[in-house]
């Protein structure tokens, strides 16, 4: 009996540190976030004490044109980057899963972008997008034969696309590796059987590869969407939310409101709305994957 209680004390001592950290880093800030969203809390204390303001922040937020613009921009970014990035990842995974020469060299090279911090990627792409004579503008002029240049980062119609391409380049290897794992889980016998049935490579993809990747696809769809909704670093370094707010995302707006202009109460309302949206998406994954398990 003494041994048992001794062992339990040990267990508790091993569990408590992690719990304390989770409470201090996640649960308390989470509760504070909700509390702040109902107050006029400022980042730096003012002479006037902080007061409870009810749902004022939420009312103002939902009437805030800039907030809706940020939501629209974030959704636009997600809608563009998710299919684009996943298509590249899947194509790359399939190419690197085939018996091509120098396969391990190609695999190593294609992982490189994942290793570069986002700020380095932004530096590289700022150079590629440079006006008037960056590499991409020279390519553009070469193809169109015109003397004009495209202001990739500064133009309101191209800024978002520029962010999409840069972001896909920076993070596709992660999804590629997960696709590669998924492809290797598909039994080779299925491909053999399809071949015996006379299926062409496109039909083999339709009837074996694509259904075999169903769970991986759902997982990556959610993962990449959530990743896209968090877009911040690229915006903060490269576009500063501009031009004219065309690349202001939810997290960038939260940062501006809460940090730059110090309106913690208002920004906390943004954080709560953001949290609810991300949770809903994560929940969707659970449901989709569970359905798969049942059927």
């Amino acid at each position, binding site marked *: 009996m003494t041994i048992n209680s001794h062992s339990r004390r040990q267990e508790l001592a*091993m569990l408590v540190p*992690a719990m304390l950290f989770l409470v201090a880093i*996640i649960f308390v800030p989470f509760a504070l976030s909700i509390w702040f969203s109902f107050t006029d809390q400022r980042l730096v204390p003012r002479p006037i004490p902080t007061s409870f303001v009810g749902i004022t922040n939420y009312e103002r937020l939902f009437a805030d044109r800039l907030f809706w613009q940020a939501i629209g921009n974030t959704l636009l970014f997600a809608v563009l980057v998710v299919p684009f990035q996943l298509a590249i990842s899947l194509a790359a995974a399939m190419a690197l899963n085939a018996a091509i020469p120098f396969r391990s060299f*190609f695999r190593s090279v294609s992982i490189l*972008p994942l290793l570069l911090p986002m700020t380095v990627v932004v530096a590289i792409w700022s*150079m*590629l997008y440079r006006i008037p004579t960056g590499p991409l503008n020279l390519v553009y002029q070469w193809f169109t034969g015109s003397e004009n240049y495209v202001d990739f980062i500064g133009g309101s119609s191209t800024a978002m696309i520029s962010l999409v391409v840069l972001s896909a380049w920076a993070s596709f290897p992660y999804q590629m590796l997960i696709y590669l794992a998924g492809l290797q889980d598909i039994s080779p016998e299925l491909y053999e059987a399809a071949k015996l049935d006379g299926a062409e490579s496109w039909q083999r993809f339709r009837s074996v590869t694509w259904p075999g990747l169903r769970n991986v696809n759902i997982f990556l769809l959610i993962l990449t969407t959530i990743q896209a909704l968090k877009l911040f670093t690229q915006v903060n370094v490269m576009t500063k939310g501009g031009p004219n707010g065309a690349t202001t995302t939810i997290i960038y707006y939260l940062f501006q409101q809460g940090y730059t202009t110090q309106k913690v109460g208002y*920004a906390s309302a943004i*954080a709560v709305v953001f949290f609810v949206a991300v949770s809903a998406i994560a929940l969707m994954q659970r449901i989709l994957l569970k359905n798969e398990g049942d059927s």
Partner: protein
Amino acid sequence: MLARLLRSGTLLPLVFAIVLALGILLPLLMMLTISLNPDEQDILISMGTLRSFIPEVFSAQNYVDVWMDPSRPFPRYLVNTLVITLSTLLISIVINSMAAFVLAQGTLPIRKPVLLLIVATIAVPAESLVLPQLMMAGWVGIIDSYQVQVLPGIANAMSIFLFFQFFSRMPKELIEAARIDGFSFFQIYRYIAMPLSRPVVSAIAILQFLEVWNAYLWPVMVTRGPEYRPLTVAMGAFFGTNQRIPWGDVMAFAVSMAVPVILFFLIMQRQFIASVMSAGVKG
């Protein structure tokens, strides 16, 4: 060669792989070439032409500038990033694996609810918590320090969950045998479970390494100057002002920043690929 590739159906994959590799290597080559060119005027003239991809001059001038610049001390930033990354990893792995071992193999009745709570927090986006965390850091008085950058990375629900998965698959007989041999619960964790979990440790360490090494939003908010600022924030500071961007210096900074990670990756390549792949399987 071509005929054989065509017959085996690998021509298309090969072409795609080559295009992909060029799309990755050309920008990196340009970064390297420009970092070796000390003449800013010449960089601007050559930008985009073939000369910005194939180095003609091999000068370390930009590297010397970047490494010696007292207003932007690269060595200091590197040390900061290393201190923050290594301490986060070390503390996080010890604390999270201990907790996970209790949840997987312990006898405490609260294990189930605690586990559920941890799994629920996996989906909480860290970005939505930065403001209250910033306020708390201000109350405790640790703004602009190493601690403030290390502490948030330690609580990692995903890491606990991955350790938990591994530990629950350990054979019960092994644990039981050790208990009969007189091992305490902690000793079983320390001398049996941890030595067996080297692959999980490296997988979690690598995933968390990328996360901490690349951290940007939080360090921007909690650092005030070069003393505790990490590399990512220093890199970001080259941009955004309306000044002319010193491309040679920026690229020398970028190369200096990327090389340690790429070397680390080349050494750990197999574990690296395995760890990202295993993170996906859990879906």
